């Protein structure tokens, strides 16, 4: 957005809020959806989280202090909503978040909205074995091709730490994928 401050000001005004929120929604619904989907895996879950994210954005926009870019703020909300969704699902089923993600990955085999072969499934399983932050960094960098600077703003971690984290994640995943392919 060329003049982000003006855009944000329009978003905060009651008279123009709806019109500009629609512009915001149309611009970010797809990238935010995919960001959420890579975390929660299931389409229906991603749909719920996406709606919750934009409801929060709509409600909180009046208090947005412009300390970061608008889209990193939205991404941060989406990331937190996704992680909270997993946590609350885990709590509901008396399981850990890791167990929920393993179950979600296993469900992908029968998921009509999963377009992957056996290798893709193994790839997802390997990603699940990564620690949470490492998983996020890998997904945002490798799969969404975001810049380290933007990932740093969203996750609140230094660029150096993110680069190290990403390098380790790539090494782990490559090792596992090669192992699978050679068998």
């Amino acid at each position, binding site marked *: 957005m060329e003049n982000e401050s003006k855009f944000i000001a329009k978003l905060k005004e009651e008279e123009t809020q709806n019109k500009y929120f*629609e512009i915001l*929604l149309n611009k970010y619904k797809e990238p935010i959806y995919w960001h959420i989907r890579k975390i929660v895996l299931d389409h229906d879950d991603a749909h719920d989280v996406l*709606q919750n994210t*934009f409801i929060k954005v709509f409600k909180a926009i009046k208090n947005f202090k412009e300390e970061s870019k608008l889209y990193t703020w939205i991404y941060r909300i989406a990331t937190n909503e996704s992680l909270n969704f997993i946590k609350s699902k885990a709590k509901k089923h008396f399981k850990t978040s890791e167990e929920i993600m393993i179950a979600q990955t296993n469900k992908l085999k029968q998921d009509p*909205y*999963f*377009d992957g072969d056996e*290798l893709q499934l193994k790839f997802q399983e390997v990603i699940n074995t990564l620690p949470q932050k490492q998983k996020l960094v890998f997904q945002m960098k490798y799969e969404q091709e975001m810049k380290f600077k933007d990932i740093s703003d969203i996750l609140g971690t230094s660029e150096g730490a993110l680069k190290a984290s990403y390098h380790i994640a790539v090494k782990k995943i*490559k090792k596992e994928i090669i192992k699978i392919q050679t068998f």
Partner: protein
Amino acid sequence: MMSKNNINLNTNRFKIPKGYFDTITIDNIKKIEKKGFIVPQNYFETININLITKNKFQSKIINLKYRELALRGIAAILIIGFFINGFFSESRSFKEAEILDYMNYELIGYSSSDYVDLFDVNEFEINFEQINELDLEYYIETSFSSDLIINND
């Protein structure tokens, strides 16, 4: 991403329903946002001060008759309790007297061997060191007739 080993992974392995993003509109978002508790139309206009003051709270009146009845009930329970307790106490002492009479008069015809059958002698521990010879002699002389003593020699 092409690695050294030419691993080409399809990063877009997920699909979505056809036309999905067209369903994500501001109207749908707002509909979800408004969902929650629903109240009847103009509900809050019906709440006014007159409605509140109309309902007067009645103080709780305690009927003394019921109190009297309760006290009578407690007294009855206590009397019955004493009676039951007294009845069982008497029966216990009555039983004891009965047992003593039986031992003194009814068991008189029992011989020593009969007593042995009645009581398990092994239950009793006899400390022979405590038995005084003089006491033992006295016991034998007074408890048994001379005939029995002669026969048991």
